[in-house]
């Protein structure tokens, strides 16, 4: 019976223990009942999140909110150098690139309103625009940011907002211009005629120019300054055929000779230290280089994705140094293909050598040349055009009339700015040459392809965006 004693001893021990545990638990319940227990289910913010108000009370976090927009622009949407961005897609859509593999809809000029490629361009742009609007609203409400920081951030956000709307308008035609974070307003927005969008872009840029500093806040020109906003303003005015304003804005940039100097060596134009760079996007990872280099380069033929089109290669005159320095030939022994090699570093180089340049000096010369030709300043126009021709190792232009000079500028832009954010397509579009140039080259070209389709999901969710663009 010793065993039984042990059992009952254990049982007593157990019971005492269980009673104590239960006492504790029920005590806690009782306490909880009395105090309402609401405090139990309150949780603090996780370390990975920060309230919107707090973000803009601190310079470092406010800055982090702004640079996040640049990361997004670099990695997704219209301006990314990867396959889905305009540099590649509009190259295929127009006559810069020939497709050898991969997604075909841009190349076939057969965009679908329900296609994910168009939806992604639209959504990621408006997502970045939301973030820019949130920065604008955040710094305006901030009580502790210094004025200089506030101006800098607000100016950058205004510039980004203008930039993205500008590209959206050129791709989609009439678009909504979104200037608030309020979803109640943004979910029912209407499309605005292009001239209204242009006016808003200009308004934003003028505000940005007023508050942005003249100097770069970073050594590597990876944050826009006042002159970046001027450079975009010059382009916006050129597209709007406001020649005086275009010429003035371009001059404002070109006059900054202390900052911007043309590179004599074509191999240095696209290096990250290039003195012709007005604004460039920095890669995410130290030592990485541009997505453009990854997108366009290939080492053996036939190309796995795309190559520069024959029509583009044939447009280079034999002594054009840009063909030599900015394109690379690849052959399999019988055939020969060319890829853009403005950016040369494909892999990680330990320390980055190239960044993705969004605005550079050459475009400003060509903007002013075209604007001056329209203004009747043929000498000035030719001067600007020849500056670019000389850097390419070419002689002076032989154009004499205004019309011929304008044509020469357009031709020069094609060779200077190829595979850079769809310049070629936009030039053909704004000068009304799309059908004449592309119809003979592309079996799928229709004149209604000048605008992308508005994503179908947008029309389904917001009928105010109706009607769909013609041809879709």
């Amino acid at each position, binding site marked *: 019976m010793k*065993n*039984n004693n042990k*059992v*009952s001893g254990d*049982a007593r021990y*157990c*019971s005492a223990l*269980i009673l104590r*545990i239960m006492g504790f*638990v*029920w005590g806690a319940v009782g306490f909880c009942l009395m105090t309402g*227990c*609401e405090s*139990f*289910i*309150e949780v603090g*913010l*996780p370390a990975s*999140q*920060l309230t*919107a108000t707090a*973000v803009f009370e601190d310079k470092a*976090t406010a800055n*982090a909110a702004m*640079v*996040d927009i*640049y990361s*997004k622009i*670099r990695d997704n949407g219209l301006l990314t150098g990867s396959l889905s961005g305009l540099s590649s897609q509009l190259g295929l859509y127009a006559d810069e690139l020939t497709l050898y*593999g991969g997604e*075909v809809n841009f190349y076939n*000029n*057969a965009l679908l309103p329900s296609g994910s490629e168009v*939806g992604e361009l639209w959504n990621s742009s*408006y*997502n970045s625009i939301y*973030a820019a609007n949130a920065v604008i609203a955040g710094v305006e409400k901030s009580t502790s940011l210094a004025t200089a920081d506030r101006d800098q951030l607000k100016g950058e956000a205004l510039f980004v907002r203008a930039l993205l709307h500008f590209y959206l308008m050129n791709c989609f035609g009439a678009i909504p211009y*979104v200037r608030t974070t309020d*979803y109640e307003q*943004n979910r029912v927005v209407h499309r605005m005629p292009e001239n209204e969008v242009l006016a808003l872009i200009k308004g934003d840029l003028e505000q940005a120019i007023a508050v942005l500093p003249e100097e770069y806040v970073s050594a590597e020109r*990876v944050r826009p300054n006042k002159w970046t906003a001027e450079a975009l303003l010059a382009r916006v005015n050129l597209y709007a055929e406001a020649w005086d304003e275009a010429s003035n804005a371009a001059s404002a940039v070109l006059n900054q000779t202390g900052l911007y100097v043309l590179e004599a060596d074509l191999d240095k134009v696209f290096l990250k230290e290039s003195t012709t760079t007005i604004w460039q996007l*920095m890669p*995410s*990872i130290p*030592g*990485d280089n541009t997505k453009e280099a*990854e997108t366009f*380069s290939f080492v053996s*033929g*036939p190309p*796995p994705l795309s190559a520069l089109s024959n029509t583009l290669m044939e447009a280079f005159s034999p002594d054009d140094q840009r063909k030599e320095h900015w394109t690379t030939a690849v052959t399999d022994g019988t055939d020969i293909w060319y890829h853009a090699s403005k950016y040369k570093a494909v892999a*990680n180089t330990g320390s980055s050598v190239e960044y993705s340049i969004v605005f550079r000096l050459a475009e400003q010369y060509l903007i002013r040349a075209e604007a001056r030709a329209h203004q009747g300043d043929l000498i000035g126009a030719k001067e600007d055009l020849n500056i670019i021709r000389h850097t390419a190792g070419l002689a002076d232009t032989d154009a004499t009339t205004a019309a011929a000079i304008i044509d020469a500028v357009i031709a020069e832009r094609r060779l200077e700015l190829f595979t850079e954010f769809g310049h070629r397509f936009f030039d053909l579009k704004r000068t009304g040459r799309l059908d004449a140039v592309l119809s003979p080259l592309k*079996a*799928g070209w229709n004149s209604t392809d000048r605008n992308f389709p508005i994503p*179908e*999901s947008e029309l389904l*969710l917001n009928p105010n*965006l109706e009607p*769909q663009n013609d041809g*879709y």
Partner: protein
Amino acid sequence: MNNFSLSRGGRAFCFLFFMGAMLSFSPVQANNSSRQSLVNTQQHQVQGTVTDGSNPLAGVSISIQGKSNVVTATDYSGRYTLSVAPQDVLVFAYVGYRTQTVYVQGRTTINISLQENTTQLQEVKINAGYYSVKNSERTGSISKITAKDIEKQPVTNVLATMQGRMAGVNITQNSGVPGSGFEIQIRGQNSLRADGNQPLYIIDGVPYASDAIGSFYTSSTTPRQTSPINSINPGDIESLEVLKDADATAIYGSRGANGVVLITTKRGKEGTTRFSATVSSGFGQVTRFMDLMHTPEYLQMRREAYANDGITDYPADAYDVNGRWDPNRETDWQKALIGGTSSYTTVQSSLSGGSAQTQFLLSGNYSKETTVFPGDFEYVKGNMHVNLNHASENKKFRINFTGGYTAQDNFLPPTDFTREALTIAPNAPALYDANGNVNWEDNTFNNPLGSLAGKFRSLTDDLIANSVLSYEWVEGLVLKSSFGYSDLRHDETNTQPSTMYNPAYGLGSEASLIFENKTNRQSWIVEPQISWNRKMGSGKMETLVGSTFQEQTSDQLVTMGSGFSSNSQMDNPGSAAHYAIQSSNQTVYKYQAFFGRVNFNWLERYIVNVTGRRDGSSRFGPGKQFATFGALGAAWLFGNEAFMKNHVGFLSFGKLRGSYGTTGNDQIGDYQYLDTYTSSGNNYQGISGLSPSRLFNPNFGWETNTKLELALETGFLEDRIFTTLGWYRNRSSSQLVGIPLPGTTGFTSLQANLDATVQNTGIEISIRTVNISNSNFSWISNLNFTQARNELLSFPNLDGSPYRNQYVIGQPLNITKVYHYTGLNPQTGVYQFEDVNGDGAITAANDRKTIKNLNPQFYGGLQNQLHYGPVQLDFLFQFVKQENFNPTFMFGMPGTMTNQPAAVTEHWQQAGDNEPYQVYSSGVKSNIQRANTRHAQSDAGISDASYIRLKNISLSYDVPERWTGKMKLRFSLQGQNMLTFTKYKGADPEFKTAGFLPPLRIYTSSVQITF
């Protein structure tokens, strides 16, 4: 605040350890007090053992016919001793087993095995979560399967074990890739949010979060992100109950809206120590291939397409026709890419036993399955399960500890090759070149096997432990507290070495990437409860009050490593030159509740059950955190009424039951009510970016679900025919949804309560018949049938909302609005559609007006169990009546460089042709391309996908004991998805997301040894 909760979590965990430690010095001793013998001097002793065929049965009552005072019972090892006269007849009776009578005939040893009484299921106790209830006295709707059903199926996912076996429970397999998981819907879709329809899973009383643990950066092989449900080992499950109606689910309050899945794991049983092991192995294959074009038809299509488009000079990228590829080559890509055979191996063993006071169970499981893809991939799962029970001598204290640990290693290719298998041109080049290297055919072939250089690997460790202490203070009054802890650690990597890509890109190992997702989730729960049961005259009352405190912390870190000096270094994250955080999330979820139940049973005929819960959840903003839910259930056992007993003899059981109540749904994610910025993982200037987390709305609260149910349960001919007819109506309102928003808002959705009401109604029928039952042969059939309808009842201002083109009042949620296909234009050969609003243009907003319902109209299963001596045969037919997207939806445009179903040869060629498919085009004609896209989004893209499937078949043979002695030996053959009868033209009618590997046909054989 945080410190307070942490210390509590720690304390709960301490309890668990303590509990385990305490058990180790509890006395483990046999208690034979229940063994008795009656002495009669004129008689002799008879003794023996009673088993259920394999296990000893304790507590079997043994009496002598005609001598009501002589009775004994078997002890914990199934033994008995009794004094009998040689001519006596022994009666062996045990709840749930058929009573057997045996003539003594002078024998001194009578061993007997009792057969389970297939008709006495009304006596079985059903687990209802916080309480259990006798099946006959249940007021709620609960479906159940047990280990006996589970062990016949060669499956490794717990949801698979229920498929086709329960009324009102619709389960679909996501894909045939190991570990890809299943979708479950209990009584239809309640929430407009696709991810808001998960039931609440409770394993031995511990809520188990089913939210995905994968990440879209890493989970690329399966249609859904990795689910933690994979961690549950079906072999450890003793019973699985699904709670459906308000009566059963209201006690789970805010988490009961979508039903509750209660999993009870196996427990130690009193008796001699027993060891059991099962080894099974088998193989699996794709159930069927699609009939695709062969090279001649394919090339003919391509050439015709270019001719139609006026292109004579084949483009540079048209390698299949421009002379680069061999026009005479043909490969069956389905065979090459998904035509392999996967293998299955499972080893399961357990050791159990114990005394009347203390019982234990230890079990281990190992399973391995491979894929049908090329390459060596496998999914390995190892699992351990421990259960210890102890009761004090006077049975007033009870302690129960259960712990389970599962480790999984899922190693898969980074992509599912099914889409490629269907779409690659049949004359595409060989996969490997002469040297055995992946063949890129001079950059012209985007070889799918390039991705075999990459890999997807997920490692999951999951610990669940719980213990329950109870103490019976005075008779009928029990204080009880359960403590649960779960800890899940998941590490998923997706390796993308540069060698995955065509060498023409010139990529080296510096471009190789590795994505890693680490997810950790810990939760603890404490649930103190008091229950009080007492008899009151002719009635009895059961009451229960309790409360819940739960905290769950999760964190997920997704990183990307790049810049490797060599691809062989990729498994070592430290060798990445750069490490970037892609996303980082930390969440805390706290939950607290009070619940109660009162059950009153009068004369075993009239039963009322009242349950309720007041819940608070941290997922809601201030002022919205608390809500109350409750239900009333009632049952009338009219079969027990005297007039029925006396006048309706064939009726052996009759019950009418009904319930009404409310439950809620808080599956909306954490912190959704806050306006915050989240660290985005984007890096710029060395600064990690902060991006706006969401459009925020501080004013959202609970989604409520009102459930009404009526059911009639009847048994005839001693329950040999047992039917349950149920009708339910669930209405959910103030839907918590991510309202879709146009992209111009910057986001695609906003979390808010929507003033819409969704109704699910349905009829559930279960019929169980014992067709034949005698000692040698039995045949039992189970039929379950569900006809369900989902309907959007009201939606104020639907036309002004973003849902206007998605939903229709009076229609189900799972509809799709499509164009109406009106046939080919006889002149151009292009698909035409109805211009509903007659504006001359076909637009999505105005002309996608034809409604197609993708919910199953009805579904169910028919299960048959046949027993002939030692041979047992089980088979289950599953049937589903439904429509789904057909192959038209999945393939590219006929004429482009993708293969097509063989039927696509029936196409338009010249004016006047009336064929099912339109003119071929190479893709440059955007009107033809658009017509093709619309065709896929029209009623022509959806067709009948009903099927009847021999879901499971199992044949087993118990080797007679006279050959094996003490050892039991069982051989079985099992098959899954054996036969499918369907008119569906695609690869398989069971899928949720197109283009993934369909469920496989699996054969296994197994041996079970017990001693």
